[in-house]
């Protein structure tokens, strides 16, 4: 069975320690969390955790079962093989070094990047997209001199609803 990235969506009761329990359940059994996104849903008492982890189908099934055992877990879905959309976001800061300034401005125009802060010294961009889009953006940003970056985990939604 082939190892690949799986996006797992977990609906939980927003209780103290719930994230520690989930992380502990995976870590304690030797599974790695590649990326993570957690926040409340429209109800404060219910949170959604979207997590990327790598494994084969059997490993993922085991992870799902282990998670289901946790008292605060309401539902676990593997969004990998169902129609779903995935998004990540990065915030990037580019300093206007003399030799890069024109290049940066041109790139922002060309790629239609969203500028959220801009002054004489630097810009901060907000870019969202699925993983390949973000990876592509990162490749394009690289030569412009990224001074700081933060990248979210994956958020995902199942198209069936």
């Amino acid at each position, binding site marked *: 069975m082939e190892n690949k990235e799986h996006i797992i969506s977990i609906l939980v009761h927003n209780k103290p320690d719930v994230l520690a329990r989930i992380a502990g359940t995976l870590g*304690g059994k030797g599974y790695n969390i590649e990326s993570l996104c957690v926040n409340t849903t429209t109800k404060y008492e219910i949170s959604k955790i979207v997590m990327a982890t790598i494994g084969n189908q*059997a490993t993922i099934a085991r992870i799902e079962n282990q998670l289901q055992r946790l*008292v605060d877990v309401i539902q676990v879905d593997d969004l990998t093989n169902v129609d779903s959309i995935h998004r990540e976001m990065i915030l990037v800061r580019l300093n206007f070094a003399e030799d890069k300034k024109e290049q940066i401005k041109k790139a922002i125009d060309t790629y239609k990047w969203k500028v959220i802060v801009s002054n004489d010294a630097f810009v901060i961009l907000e870019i969202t997209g699925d993983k390949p889009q973000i990876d592509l953006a990162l490749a394009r940003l690289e030569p412009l001199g990224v001074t700081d970056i933060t990248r979210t985990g994956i958020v995902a939604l199942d198209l069936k609803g």
Partner: protein
Amino acid sequence: MKLKGSQILLKMLEEEKVDIIFGYPGGSVLDIYDQLYKSNIKHILVRHEQGAVHAADGYARATGKVGVCLVTSGPGATNTVTGIATANMDSIPIVVFTGQVPTALIGNDAFQESDITGITRPCTKHNFLVRSVEELASTIKEAFHIARSGRPGPVLVDLPKNVMATETDYDPASIKIRNYDIFHKPAPKKMAQVLEMLTQAKKPLIMTGGGVILGKAAAELTELARLYQIPVTGTLMGLGSFPGTDPLWLGMLGMHGTFYANMAVSHCDLLIAVGVRFDDRVTGTIETFAANAKIIQIDIDPSSINRNVVVELPIIGDTKATLRDMIKFLAEHNYTPLPTERSEWLKQTAEWREKVPLTYCQNGQVIKPQYVIETLRKLTKGNVIVTTEVGQNQMWTAQFFQFDKPNTFITSGGLGTMGYGLPAAIGVKCAFPDKQVVDIAGDGSIQMNIQELATAAQYNISVKIVLLNNGYLGMVRQWQELFYEKRYSHTDMSYAPDFVKLAEAYGIVGLRAIKPGEVEPVLQKGLSIDKPVLMDFQVSREECVYPMVRPGESISEMELGTREMIN
């Protein structure tokens, strides 16, 4: 009604019909102990917090109810960890209340603070830190509910000192909690598959585990096996879920399973596994386990299914309800096994049994440990609840005692905790004061919680300890004999107290048997005294448990011991 946290705790324990608590006081639970002073709930003062948890666990295994313990913060709480992990591995419903420093001090490394919810997160079913008195009553109710619902397990509730001292309104009628019950859904499609698989099977075998005892499904399992003449084997945790004296019973399987049980598993063409999790001690090498069989697995916990062994037909559900559905479905569809095929299979298992029976040789002037166990069984007619320690004593008990009823064999299976048997026996005896309760012990294990003899003495909890004293950490020595060319590295424990004098020093009765002829009289005497008794049987020092499957081998490949031993 306005009550303090400590009063609410006791009220809630009454609501949950708790009749006994095993505990040990300390600074952060003083308020609770002050309430206990005025309460009708019985409290057993153990001598070590580990003992409190094992006692609550033994109580739970024998009664099927939730066991309760209460300890102080810091070291009191950390001392419970082995007990909690023991209960967790075997899915035993207990609730452990720990004291905690006041909420304002949590996180400050205050005196006797420990992050016990953090420490026990991986070894509890769930745990709670009660942050305010308002959430206390519902948290306690939830804790009990979680401990006993679905796949049971230990729940820890951490109680900061100030929460116990603060007042709030208490109204038991208004407490609402989430429901964790799993409702049984009949699965007719799966039952049709069971019928089909059974119809095709020539050599079916049932494998019963702890889930049958926890799910109170022993009667259903027995009915199914007897109705259709299907032989039965069981895991350590499943012993007692099918009568050990029934001709269909093949004994335990796995590392120290019987020859005939392991052969039957290796040759069966259909394995109906109920309430088991296919531990590596049971399966041997996975690739060869039940290699000729299709497997039906019934378990309440989806995470037990397809974890170690891939099964053809998983059925997730309560063991009792599922077996009942199965019996009904098979009857409605007139399932009848082909008589010649079934009798051939039963003949085959009988031949294996005859070829290599479970046996030992009581000759000479040295007591064989197995003989002590067989004599105990003979004298009590099995009418006894047995706990064990861990090691050879545990395996010989599993092999030779022939448990007929569920909840009568109480042992630490998953974690294998030495020191479990004595405090567990105390818990069992508290639940059933009129029953004979015996801890079959090894001399290494008994010393791990020997302090609980004082507990037994103080309350005259008349447990009987059958000490199989071989002066070794016997099971480890056995591995050294077989796999490390008899290099007995640090397993000789012949430096030990005089156990009879030790018993007397604790104020209980001590007896000793040195010759085989003394075994029966000592047992008879020990069992007849209405006080705790420690019986020291000086047994053959280098006896091994056989059969034995070498770790990493197929369970059909067993070491059977020498001829001298087995005839």
